[in-house]
């Protein structure tokens, strides 16, 4: 992993930025925020060493936050990081979530990357500001800069002291920081941190308890119209043959039903009911008659997608190779006993609490789109394509996001508002009803995984892992597909991450199969925890099956494979450490459990090896062997976050990610019938509610190495830990998510 104390090599970020900068999406984005724009000319109103921060003559420090805020309090963490190096008082820090602009470089919020990717740039921005302020004071006083120091918003030395605000107001502060200059700055060591590692109050929270926080759905323009989508009969492929809105005209305020052509191809058939109020648009929509052609997917259901997955798995010529260690095929052929298991996950929806929505406005030749977004770098060109304009003519204005979970990585929801505005010449706000939001979701594809393995001498002798699913990157950002090991096939790392474990297996083969029928039926997206949300479920469940076959305790079995050999150095040790801590805190080896109660464990790297958050979960579960009913007595989760910016923020994200994992493990799924998503609201799609929250113990390890993300990793480990505990308690091995009492009962029979 290189030096754990330094910023990681550009890795995924570098790849994404370089692909997008090559013009694949017609845009020249830079890699790094904060570099590439010269500092503002010195003025006595404010000073900006790099574009990420601005220090006002009033002493207020504004951090330009390029990441979206959807519950992670990412802006607060950014402000802490800047504050640390700048030596400003915490009370002076403010955050501003910026609109899309090429100056910010790659704009994406996902993958639990935010802090890992920006910690270095933000630290250097703060350090640059401090260095310039000290230089200005030194010049003013005619002393050497190294005799001065900064703290709490003041530069002091030689018995003198001057505030940042006085320095800025004097116009004496200047400094144009190039990327090279920034690189030369020496950053603080963790031992001297003052604000990093402190649980500060999140800067966005006060607005979120008094109703003043403005989400995209709260945006309003004078004279704007409201639009309500009229759902097509299938998720994808339907076209509107004719639209009759004559009955709807009786509704006061109803304007018309628009049948819109979407040149981006995001919508094959798009009909929007438009009115002076949203209520009238909804009432009108109910009265509009659309003659639909349901399109090519009208007969597709879950069984058809599963059949396609099985066909792919059975064909050795299909698929992309993601991991190849030794020769797993040959080793399995030689093994005495081969264990094979198939694991599945169903269709999963994002359903953020704020239903998807957007408002469009055309002003002075520029399209302004209002609505929270997670992937401006891809959403801008997508909207531009739909509007048939140059991407430089599209600006996305950022708001608080009422949940993202990956839904807002795909900017398709801007298109109905944009096209309606174009058609009518008036701003239109399109709000998806909850049913629209669910049925038009870029849902996480179902997954079908087949694993085969053999054990010898208490260890894994060979493992093959076939993953079939719809690839989200084919839908959201095809330019970001990578090459497989053989450089022969494309691979969507966001459909397979997590299968490349830190265990040392002598023979290991992982293959990724592209279920195109799944992609055509429900064009997939990225859902919180992305691929590890299903790869870790299958892998960590199967590791327990292998441990059982080897007759070794599941924890000892895992530790035996976390030897840190070769490419697994450092990471395997860190994984072993979180596992040991989870084991210790849960009572795994010390607590006597009654009959029918057992522990189950699971570990993961969080998202991807290059930005791993080492994670372990121990679930304690009680199963009624007669009915299959089970209860979660406790979930113990441990992270290794490297460095915690805000301890309470880390715990909050751990709770949230753990319960999202619980929700996927036990409560959430829907199906596809006649080419459509079946769930229509929170009665058919049922995320965790308060009564379902089990006792939880959250803790983390922070050794002071480079920080990693916290918003997703726990999501990956909850389902396999629970499944493993259920198997241990009752002998029932459930291999499909969500796990229900009926599944458990069936697996016991």
């Amino acid at each position: 992993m290189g030096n754990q104390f330094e910023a990681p090599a550009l890795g995924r970020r570098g790849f994404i930025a370089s692909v997008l900068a090559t013009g694949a999406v017609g845009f020249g984005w830079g890699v790094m925020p904060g570099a590439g724009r010269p500092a503002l000319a010195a003025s006595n109103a404010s000073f900006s060493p790099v574009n990420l921060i601005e220090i006002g003559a009033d002493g207020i420090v504004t951090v330009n936050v390029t990441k979206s805020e959807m519950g992670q309090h990412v802006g607060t963490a950014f402000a802490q990081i800047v504050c640390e190096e700048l030596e400003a008082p915490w009370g002076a820090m403010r955050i501003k979530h910026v609109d899309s602009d090429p100056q910010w470089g790659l704009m994406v919020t996902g993958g639990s990357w935010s802090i890992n990717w920006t910690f270095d740039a933000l630290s250097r921005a703060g350090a640059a500001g401090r260095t310039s302020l000290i230089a200005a004071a030194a010049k003013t006083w005619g002393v050497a800069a190294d005799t001065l120091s900064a703290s709490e918003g003041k530069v002091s030395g030689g018995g003198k002291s001057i505030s940042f605000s006085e320095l800025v107001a004097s116009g004496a502060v200047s400094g144009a920081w190039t990327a090279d200059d920034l690189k030369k700055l020496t950053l603080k060591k963790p031992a001297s941190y003052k604000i990093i590692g402190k649980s500060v109050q999140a800067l966005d929270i006060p607005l979120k308890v008094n109703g003043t926080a403005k989400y995209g759905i709260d945006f309003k323009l004078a004279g704007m119209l409201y639009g309500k989508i009229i759902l097509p009969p299938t998720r994808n492929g339907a076209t509107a043959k004719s639209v009759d809105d004559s009955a709807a005209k009786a509704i006061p305020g109803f304007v018309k039903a628009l049948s819109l052509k979407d040149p981006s191809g995001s919508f094959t058939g798009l009909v929007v009911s438009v009115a002076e109020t949203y209520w009238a648009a909804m009432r009108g929509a109910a009265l509009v008659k659309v003659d639909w052609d349901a399109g090519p997917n009208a007969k597709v259901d879950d069984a058809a997608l599963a059949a396609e997955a099985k066909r792919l798995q059975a064909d050795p010529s299909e698929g992309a190779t993601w991991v190849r260690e030794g020769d797993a095929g040959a080793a399995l052929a030689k093994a005495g006993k081969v264990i094979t298991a198939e694991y599945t996950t169903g269709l999963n929806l994002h359903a953020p609490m704020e239903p998807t929505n957007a408002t469009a406005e055309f002003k002075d030749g520029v399209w302004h789109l209002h609505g929270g977004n997670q992937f401006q770098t891809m959403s801008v060109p997508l909207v531009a394509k739909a509007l048939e304009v140059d991407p430089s003519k599209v600006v996305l204005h950022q708001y608080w996001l009422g949940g993202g979970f990956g839904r807002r990585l795909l900017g398709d929801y801007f298109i109905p508002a944009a096209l309606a505005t174009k058609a009518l010449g008036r701003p239109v706000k399109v709000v998806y009803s909850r049913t629209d939001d669910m049925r038009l979701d870029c849902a996480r594809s179902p997954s079908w995984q087949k694993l085969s393995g053999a054990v010898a001498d208490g260890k894994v002798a060979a493992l093959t892992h076939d993953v079939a699913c719809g690839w989200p990157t084919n839908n959201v950002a095809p330019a970001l597909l990578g090459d497989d090991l053989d450089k022969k096939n494309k691979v969507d790392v966001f459909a397979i991450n997590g299968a490349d474990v830190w265990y040392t297996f002598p023979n290991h083969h992982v293959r990724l199969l592209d279920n195109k029928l799944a992609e055509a039926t429900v064009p997939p997206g990225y859902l919180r925890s992305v691929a590890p949300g299903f790869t870790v479920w299958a892998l960590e469940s199967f590791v327990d099956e292998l441990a059982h076959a080897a007759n070794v305790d599941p924890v000892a079995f895992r530790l035996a494979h976390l030897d840190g050999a070769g490419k697994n150095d450092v990471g395997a040790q860190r994984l072993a450490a979180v596992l040991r801590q989870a084991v210790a805190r849960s009572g795994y080896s010390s607590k006597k459990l009654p009959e029918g109660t057992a522990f189950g464990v699971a570990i993961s790297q969080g998202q991807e090896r290059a930005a791993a958050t080492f994670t372990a979960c121990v679930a304690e579960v009680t199963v009624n062997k007669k009915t299959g009913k089970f209860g979660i007595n406790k979930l113990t989760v441990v992270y290794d976050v490297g460095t915690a910016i805000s301890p309470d923020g880390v715990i909050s994200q751990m709770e949230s990610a753990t319960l999202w994992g619980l929700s996927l493990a036990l409560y959430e799924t829907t199906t596809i019938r006649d080419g459509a998503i079946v769930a229509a609201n929170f009665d058919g799609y049922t995320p965790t509610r308060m009564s379902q929250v089990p006792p939880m113990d959250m803790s983390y390890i922070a050794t002071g190495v480079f920080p990693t993300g916290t918003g997703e990793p726990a999501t990956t480990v909850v389902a396999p830990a629970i499944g493993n505990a259920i198997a241990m308690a009752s002998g029932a091995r459930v291999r499909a998510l969500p796990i229900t009492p009926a599944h458990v009962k069936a697996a016991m029979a």
Partner: protein
Amino acid sequence: MITINVNGHQQTLDVPPDMPLLWVLRDVLDLTGTKFGCGSNLCGACTVHKDGKAVRSCQVSIGDAAGANITTIEGLGAAGEHPVQAAWIKEQVPACGYCQSGQIMNAAAFLAANPDPEDEEIVRAMEGNLCRCSQYVRIQKAIKTAAETMKTGGAATNG
């Protein structure tokens, strides 16, 4: 013309009587703190007080609200100083925050009727309020904190 009292202000509105209170608040009165989440009594994001009781504003037509006193999150404690709001800050409850107006309004009405609740009563009262960010542990904690401060007659401190 329909007359209602919202956050202490008398309002006379020219809107169709079947229009849900939710959309009147959000789109006509610009009180966007009340949120739309499901429109079907399934999430609680739209919770407001009608004559002191928590109601789902997506399920109440403006015609049925005529003459009532409505309180929204904006009127609960304008500066966020209601003990429930203060507790929400102290316990750092909101994540994305979108469900929290509804959670707070539901909790405030609940605590007004049941100032010293047992844990199970809290769960039962809050079960209809979905939080997709799953901040349930903190919501429970904050309700207890608020109950504590309301008992002693003070406001929860921000600490």
